[in-house]
């Protein structure tokens, strides 16, 4: 349901990135991902929520109910210090991986 491991890892990384500037609620996180990835990553928006909860369970996200600017109750997610470390490590891994893959895909036959 959550897609391949590649997908899961990517989604997790994007979620962590989305909250790296401060607490956001689920809808805002989804919207940020949609906006910045031209809707290429998220096919079903609902998939976001199991991922958020999983990251919360792992101690990378903290959850807190709060009130939005429009006065509505929403659950906010923020990055924990463990989460920040994870974000840093995953970012590094991702860029290494993606550059390696793109290098391979653009190379000519040896």
């Amino acid at each position, binding site marked *: 349901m959550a897609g391949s491991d590649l997908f899961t890892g990517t989604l997790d990384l994007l979620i962590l990135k989305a909250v790296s500037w401060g607490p956001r609620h689920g809808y805002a996180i989804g919207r940020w991902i949609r906006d910045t990835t031209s809707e290429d990553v998220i096919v079903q928006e609902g998939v976001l929520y199991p991922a958020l909860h999983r990251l919360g369970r792992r101690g990378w996200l903290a959850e807190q109910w709060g009130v939005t600017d429009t006065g509505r109750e*929403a659950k906010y997610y923020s990055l924990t210090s463990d989460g920040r470390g994870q974000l840093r490590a995953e970012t590094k891994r991702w860029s290494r991986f993606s550059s390696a893959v793109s290098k391979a895909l653009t190379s000519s036959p040896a």
Partner: protein
Amino acid sequence: MRRIIRRSDLRDDSARDVSDELRFHLEMRTQEFIERGMSPEDARRAAARAFGDMGAIDAALRHESVLRDRYRARRDRLHEMVADIRFALRTLRKNAGFTAATLATLALGIGAATAVFTVVNGVLLRPLPYRDPSRLLMVWMSSKQYGEELPLSSGFYSDLAAGTTAMAQTAAFRSWRYTFAPSNASDAEQVEGARVTPSFFDVLGIRPAIGRPFNEADAAVGAPPVVILSDALWRRAAGGDRAVVGRQLEMSGQRFTVIGVMPPGFSFPRGAELPAGLAFGARTQLWTPMGFTEKDRQSYATQNMAAIARLRPGASAPQFHTTITSILERWRLAVAPKLDLHYSVATLIEQAGEHVRRGLLFLLAAVGLLLCIAWANVTSLLVARTTRRRREFAVRAALGAGRARIAAQLVTENVILALAGSMLGLAISIWATRAMLALVPGSMPRADDIAIDWRVMLAVSAAALVAGIAFGLAASTQAGFAHVASSLRDGTRSATGRHSTFGRRALVVAEVALSLMLLIGASLLTVSFARLQRVEPGFDPSHVMTAAVGLPVPGEFNPKRDGAEWARFFRGLQDRLSQSPGVEAAGGVSALPLADAVESGSTSTIGEPPPIPGKAHFTEYLVTEGDYFRAMRISLLGGRTFNGTDVAGSQPVVIVNREYARKYLGGTATALTHQIRVFSDFSGGRDARSVVGVVDNVQSGALDGPVQPQVYLPEQQMNYPGLAVVVRTRDDPTAALTLVRQQMKETDPRAALDHPRTMQRVFDESLARQRFSMTLITVFAVAALVLAMIGLYGVISLMVNNRRREIGVRMALGARTADVLRMILAEGAMIAAVGVAVGLVGAFALSRLVSTLLYGVSPTSVAIYTSAALLTVLVTTAATLAPARRATRVDPTVALRSD
């Protein structure tokens, strides 16, 4: 973002939480679509479509929430436990007095019990370090006249071995000392060895770690001499070099080829496990082969070897005993029908523990009592503490702590106490085990088999854990938070109803009783020990240095060949020693009193009809040289001691002791007119010897042994290759050791010296086992008494506290200080009296257990029972005194106002 607190932050309500979250998402998304110009209806549909498969996402979320709940529960439990432990440590630290008392009591009880059990385990219970040790039997001979556990002769052994091959494999062995210089640089020393038949290592089931065991060819007459070394001797003499096999060693003037090295720890036969008469060293260090010639197989007279048998599968000890008995019976009918000799067998493990079993079991019982007292004290301390904390529990219950939470808290506290106490106890036990063994150097059988057993450690820790949990649960039922309201209202007063004080009093009564029993046991052993120490040994041990000095005996023991040389050596050594400065007198003896195994044999009086077999004059016989009697200050009662004229070729002479003279020669006065014949005399011809002197009796075997007839023969007329040299000095006797060493070397450089010590130490070491039992039980008794004191003090203190109001009322109504004091003391005296009564009955009931350990004191001695009871009463009264005095200082106005 403004923070709000939702119910889900406090308590798990994840289902509602999730649905709220998803609803918020959908509404926001719908809003987004509306803003893009969709109708609300279309926008909602679009939002749902964008969200995706609701069913699948819902399932994923549910799965996630299950995982999360599980994780949270685990984290909460961990937090709770950490909090419990923290709180317990804080509470224990705050009540330092209680904690210290409990820990000390637990550590003492567990430490002492574990140490004693470790020794009992090693000596009596653990299997011996040989293959299948339960099938090993020791074979002895016994006789009504000569006693039990007698060695066999080569003739008896050969018959037995030949007749039992179907049911057992047998081996014979005897002690043999070798003079041996471990290296070129060091002096020759005497090494404890054993000569063994080739089957010896097979019977024990232990093979050499390096090299090979003996075979029949090694034991044949004229075979080149070979030796097997112990691991310890191999390391000392060959530096642990594995290439030692095949190398030659010079021992006792002969060259032996090393053919093997035994594994570490193997040192059978070990002296403390076998009858002293066989004269084995504490650990055998080397083995040489022993074979029998046809003549040896026919020789029944000289009983000098031990026999061991391994039963074959299917054979039993009684069956083996029956078989060897019938072999002996056949021989007896043919050769000596009236001879009073029988076979006895004992399993090796019985043999090893036999002499100490009773003493050790007694100590085990004693330490068991101590452990009971410790338990009683700890229980009583914990119960008292719980009752005192009732208000605390009530407050916590009122604040919402569940029964389970408080129970968990109590269990945590008690488990920490129990575990810490047992760890301390185990540490103490390791130290105490060593200290115990140091009390009995060399005389505790199987001392090498005593080791801290991890199974014992594990059992102790597990028991402590279970006890901690049990105490915690018991205390939590006592905590009384079921009646929160009444506990809070009544404060501490109601916390000590009749019920719990009765329990505590019963515990203290038991403590007093048990400690009195221990005190009586300790007093009995102490008095017995004092009596033993005052036994007149027949010699004066002060200012005497002694050491075993011997010449090497190459090959067989042959006095005819070498005797003159031995006599010359000892005469020369004595002459040099007695002329040395600081030496008052010097001499030598074949068996040192209270230390060495003395030889025994028969004598007859010249002029009387030859003794009928079994009625010969049985006596201990000793060979002396020089001024032995003066050096040991053995009183001369009549006649003279040996002098320079008593040499080979002159009139054969003998000196007898008072007991011999009384028993066989009609008293000291008439003894000097007689001549006697000593049958074990190998000097030549068994000449008639004139009795030239009568000396006082000497306790040769043990201080509590019977007085035996003794005869002394001069070295010059009956040659021995090894004597214990004794030197009486004017000052410090230990200084004489260098002198003896030096004079010995100068007299004959081949001579070796061994076992140097003062005679005072010989005397003290002969009492080592008694001192061991006495010291331990005294320590236990004192510890028990202190614990009982603490227990009684606790009970009375608590009682005084509980009755403050009552005492206040009494004092307000005109009771005087003395009345109050009397009232409290009476309470303590009651408990003590009941305890003493129970203790006296208990001690009397157990008196039979201790009777065999005592010398010169009755196990039911009225004087000891009375004084121990008085001491107990005194000590317990002292324990009640402090709380009683506190009671008299109760201020009625304060007591009445307070809760």
